């Protein structure tokens, strides 16, 4: 029953949930980068030098 409800919620709002999840982590990582000098650095794009 619970699985059915969860599956229904995901089918109806899956994209919104995914986008919210992604935005949340983007903000967390960016804040980490801004707030600490030793924060996680973003590597350059690999294919830019081709």
């Amino acid at each position, binding site marked *: 029953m619970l699985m059915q409800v969860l599956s229904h919620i995901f089918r109806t709002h899956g994209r919104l949930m995914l986008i919210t999840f992604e935005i949340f982590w983007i903000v967390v990582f960016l804040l980490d980068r801004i707030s600490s000098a030793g924060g996680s650095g973003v590597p350059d794009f690999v*294919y830019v030098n081709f």
Partner: protein
Amino acid sequence: MFETISHWLQRLPSTEFYSGAPFWAYFVLVVIAVRALPARGTVRDLLLLVANVGMLLALPRFNGTALALYVALGVFTFGVGRVLLGDSVKGRRPRILIALLGILAVLFVLAIFKYRLLQSLLLKDSSLFGQGAAHFIFLIGISYSSFKAIHFVIEAYKRKIEGLRFLEFANYLLFFPSFVSGPINRYNDFHQSSTTARRSSLRPDLAPGLERIVHGLFKKFVITVILFPHTIVQLKTPLAELAPWQILLGLYAYALYFYFDFSGYTDLAIGSARLLGFHLPENFNLPFLKKNIQQLWANWHMSLTGWLTDYVYWPLVRRMRNMDFLRQHPLIISNSAIIITFFLCGAWHGESVNFILWGLYHGVGIAIVNLYQKWKRQVRHALALKYFASRLSYTVGVILTFNFFAIGLLFLVDSRQVVAVVQRFF
């Protein structure tokens, strides 16, 4: 004039595409400007061209000289295309000659800015490009612009270019969302997109464009940041001192990093183009869930593999089919063409031998898959047929393919370290 504009623009903060805050500030202004204009063709095209040029000049390694070179390349390619599409040159031979001349000229420019040896022989003063004298000049975007220019010349030779106009062609060549790393779009698709873009409002493109940008940012700012320290090139211990499983995990992380980095870039390019009203082709379709290396490549960097298939692989196959001694052996034709295509793909990725070996590794891998497929078609055993159609066969295929791809990345790692690993284990 370009130098003046460049100088003026260089007072603004320069920015790498998609990763710097200034980029997004400029990008919002460009979207507003392009979308706010009335839907009049030439004015819109002109504004888009100004926006494209402005964005390129904001790149840290792009200056007026680089822009002048692109203008020359664009004018030359457009001229060749116009001649090939017009009626002034009649006869097959002169048209072939003009097309060949156009392609060779573009390849020559590409080779100069791609290969150190050629550049050191032909270009003495690298300070012109603002990268300091006696320095290898890296002309950003040259690979992808060359691919577009060659595609344009070939399609013009076939008289398949639709609605050619200079402003639209210039925008096609310098279109900033795909300028640095693709996807490699085709001229007719761009022309169609451009026609649609003139009519449509931002509303239908806003949600899909932003959604794609969020996917790209998540891949770039979250997933690759997590993966990068674990990739084989970032491991602190020399490879020869690591256990095989540690090397393998480093390679897996490197493969996933490559995928998320490049597909993230593609998402950002496609999403940004969409906000401007343009549709760019897809570049990735879950390549690591494909059951053989041939399918992986058909779904990895698709715009490049599509380009190589159309302009290298098929012409080679057609030429070989005309040879009497090869006509009866289609598998030899197909495998030779695929190995040559991947040899060139490797040579394009870099000038050193390891890139060529990497290309050959994949070419030979696909040739082996072709042989296997031929053998599979001859199998009649019921149990084997059941296995081929099963989920287990698919899963085994996916695992083997991913491992083949990941192990191939060893060619792109420091070759001395790889030699040390090989010496240790064999």
